């Protein structure tokens, strides 16, 4: 999956609750044994969970939950242990002021993101039920794309608990293990998942990479396609975006596009902003013969780049004219200076006779500089 290259990898998923007798504890974790639970809590954990696993066995469910109960104690010899649960338990199952808030805490090498939830109800022994489903990442991971995921998972689970005691009832709670497994596998492999929980609830997730917002679009900016937009247009696209795309040619500015496409100006701006967000277009200035251009520092690298050298000639030459050589074109670029309009520059260097399309010539330079800025 190409998406794996920029989405952080989940190291572990775990589900923790506030246990009436033991306080905060991890009920299930996938993969198992990565998070150490303290030795003191361990014996009581297995004691407390034995009746639960026997009910499961009685119901004839898959033996997986009970086998998990056996294998859940951490192997002291294993160096795969990520961290000790005791260190972070107060951030995973916190007291009320933190419930309903997104909490990210960190250990030396890892970062744990969760959304602790506390549900009130007289049916609970303490009149509340607290749980948290947490994801563990590398410490350096960027978690912004997981924040909505974590919120949503907690929201759905809270709804299930409120409707049918899904989490707190011993009959249904072992299903959490399978949910964790699927979250771990699917999100890491496919960046999306669909987990049906019961007849009414399911967890539907898709991770989107987070891009910064584009700057506001101005009416006088000229959108310029960086990919072949027309080949990407699909029928179910937004109508305005489809109409706007047809008029993006590197010449028309936003206001003109709105006129040509017969679209609302504000909607046109939004459509252009949307394309900018996905970085399939960039904006340049309106080309005029009174414009002035100047060299930027990166020309020193760009002049040696094969992709610049090879693309420039064919791109900037008018059809049917012989293609000027790169040293000649580079020389023309080097003579663009502040204080000298494009018109004056054309006059003094006989640009017209060379068969160079000046608009494409300047936009080529602007594109290459900003691509490599």
């Amino acid at each position, binding site marked *: 999956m190409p998406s794996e290259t920029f989405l952080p990898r989940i190291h572990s998923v775990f589900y923790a609750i506030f246990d009436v007798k033991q306080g905060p504890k991890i009920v299930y974790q996938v993969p198992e044994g990565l998070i150490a639970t303290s030795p003191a809590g361990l014996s009581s954990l297995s004691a407390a969970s034995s009746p639960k696993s026997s009910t499961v066995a009685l119901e004839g469910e898959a033996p997986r939950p009970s086998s998990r109960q056996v294998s859940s104690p951490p192997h002291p010899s294993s160096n795969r242990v990520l961290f000790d649960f005791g260190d972070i338990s107060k951030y995973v199952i916190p*007291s009320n002021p933190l419930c309903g808030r*997104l909490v990210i805490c960190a250990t030396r090498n890892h970062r744990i993101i969760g959304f602790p939830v506390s549900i009130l109800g007289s049916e609970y022994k303490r009149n509340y039920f607290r749980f948290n489903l947490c994801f563990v990442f590398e410490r350096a991971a960027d978690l912004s794309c997981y924040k909505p995921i974590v919120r949503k998972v907690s929201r759905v689970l809270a709804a299930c608990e409120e409707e049918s005691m899904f989490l707190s009832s011993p009959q249904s709670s072992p299903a959490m293990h399978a949910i964790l497994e699927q979250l771990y596998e699917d999100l890491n492999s496919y960046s999306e998942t669909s987990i049906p929980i019961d007849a009414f609830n399911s967890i539907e997730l898709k991770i989107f990479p987070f891009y910064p917002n584009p700057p506001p679009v101005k009416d006088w900016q000229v959108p310029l396609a960086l990919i072949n937009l027309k080949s990407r247009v699909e029928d179910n696209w937004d109508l305005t975006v489809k109409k706007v795309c047809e008029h993006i040619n590197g010449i028309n500015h936003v206001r003109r596009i709105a006129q040509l496409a017969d679209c609302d100006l504000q909607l046109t701006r939004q459509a252009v902003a949307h394309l900018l967000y996905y970085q399939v277009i960039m904006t340049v200035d309106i080309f005029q013969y009174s414009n002035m251009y100047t060299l930027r520092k990166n020309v020193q690298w760009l002049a040696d780049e094969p992709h610049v050298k090879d693309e420039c000639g064919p791109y900037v030459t008018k059809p049917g004219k012989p293609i000027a050589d790169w040293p000649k074109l580079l020389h023309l670029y080097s003579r663009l200076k502040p204080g000298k309009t494009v018109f004056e520059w054309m006059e003094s260097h006989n640009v017209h006779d060379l068969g160079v399309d000046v608009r494409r010539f300047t936009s080529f330079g602007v594109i290459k500089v900003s691509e490599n800025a």
Partner: protein
Amino acid sequence: MAQTLLAFLLVNSSAKGPNLVFRWPPNPESTSRLSRPLPSEDRLELDNPWRAANHNDSPPNTVEANGEAVATAAEDYQWKSPSVIRDRSRSFPRTTSLPTSAVNALSEERLFDDDELAEDPTDEKYHRIFDYSTQFLAGMLCPKTSLCHQKFDLVIDDLLFIGHPVCVNDDGRWQFKREKSSSGSRGRSSINRESMDDIKSEASTRAYSPIRENESSWLHMFHFVLVLDLPDPSSSASENMSKYFDTMYKQIAFTITAVLFQEQVLSNFVELECDVLGSLEAEYIAKGEPFSAFVSQALEVSSIASVMKALFDAVKSSTMAYITLNNIPLELQLPPFLDHLLHSEEEYELDFVDPQEDEDEARLWGCDLSFGWRLPSLAPWKSLLLLEGVQELDPYINLRGPHVSPDERDHAEGLVKFLEVASVTLSLSDMADLLGWNLETQIYPTVRWLVHHRRAKVVDTIHSDLKTIFTIPPKFVAPLCTLSAEFKRDFPQPEIPPLPSLLASISEASSRQSDNHFFAVVVRSKELIPLYHEVVIWLLKRDMLFTLHLRIRIVATTELKARVRQAHEYKLERSRGQRHQDRIGSSLRLRDQDPAFYDVNTRRPGSSWFPLPPRGAHRFSRRMPSAESESSRVSETSLRHVGEDDEEVLTDESDDENIAWGSPEDTLWPSLISDPGTASPLERRWLAAMSEGKDEHIARRFERINQYFDGKSTDDEILYRAEISRKQLREVLHHYDEYLQTFLHPA
């Protein structure tokens, strides 16, 4: 300016539990916002069908009124960059409702708050911060001891808490950590270790005994915390965000903690301060005094409290914080361009002087200055501009403490000498010569120190007669009218034009091909040079001038290439006529060594789109037969290989053998020799041919310096590296004009 910084907190933990000792500012506030972006900022989509249906027949003022109501309701929730609302936030009334309550689906739960009791309003300010009880928040900020002595960060919704908690060791004593620590068994970060070593070594230079005999220490842990407002992720790229937070941690949280920890170990400093603040707070609460009274009193009695205030003010005004903790002077600051990381690149796209991202450059500046400083490269041909305040700079200021080595005193004296010599017309290497200092070990560290303390900045060396070509930046630091007024005040002389016209002539000048330097454009008279020196320095200090640098590239023209090929053909012909047999032998050997040679030649007529010159075609047709007869002659030539005549042929042709005649490189199409320093044999042949018919001394100079004609080295760099004068360079440029391209742009 660190827009995101909301507050500093000092938290401690003792047998009595966690406690918030002090905070600055007294009532920090976070900005409220939606956890998701609003669907649309222009409210057009809110009810488009309605809008379409009522387009004409509804009075416009109703629409507007509705729109405004929506806008104001939404305004409070929409996240804005802190700089936008900074001014407003000062006058914000303290919001009593929970900021996120309208947002989070599960917020009703929080209405039930079990660890909170009804408090009277006087008390409330003592016990609440960011809508949490101080007790609760302090508990969250005091982690388990296994998470102490390392970087701490915790995100709660939109608040980020960064710090470096430290605690007593297993015996309950404040001690410097030994090499082996219980918590550091896995993945100990090198930074932590290194810095703890720093603290240790720093402490060992002082003649205190590490631990005082006071077993009464009640302080278990303390934690100096930075509270930051997490910027909206849509505002900038995420990797920038983490770099930003890391810089805040390293420059402020870690440094302060290191000093506090040292002082706690050596003199129980933090505990005493906590005692003072704790009892003061208890006293003021008991007396029923308002919280503000406690804060102002605390600033007077506690040095930690006043340090927190001074540091906060300095960070917010992006200046250096000069603070003193238990008589240890500290200078803290954040990189000046740190906040730029939080904005999308487009906003700063106009900075056409790109910051250096080169690793070598970063190494020269050192890790402290490499990030968020946007420094130009540090090179021998650069110069140094001293900024305001440097005259008042007292090099001995830091040397009044009790622990000054004679070394440092020498440094201070050196610095005084350096400041006397430094001038924008002298390059760093000139300064090194004048002072008799070593460039790398003495000049650079001094420059780094001055730049770090914002006393100087690195600029391009200015020609002493002001014959430097300048350009102006796209944006100024202040509005032009303000700058003009200041300029008029500082330079009332009638000879000096007003600032706008001065800038206009500078800007316009760079389009000229000659006489585009400052002297020719503006000064024009030798008597005015000293005066204009001041003008240039004035402009440089405000980043209003950039030096344009000349870069040079070499072009191998068609005419030149044809000439070289012709000469080659001629030589080939001659040797062919003289030693027919040998020619076949050598050309066969050549082909055997380089299969590409054969391939390229045979494919040429079909695939080449460039019309072959008649001579090339001729050569091609003549070579074919020899290729056909290749197999029959191989044995013959290999036998003849040892002859004496052959030796001569070989040496004559050996240079040619390396040249890829006929390869894709060998065309008559003009091309750039992109890196003459590592030119291919064919390119070397072209370079040599450029010198044909030139003066011998010019040709020799060209040969020596053409390695710098790569379009990357600046004129200053060429002059420094090749050790020639500007005039000599100009001579070369003049004589080789037809083969050279020049570029003028900022460094």
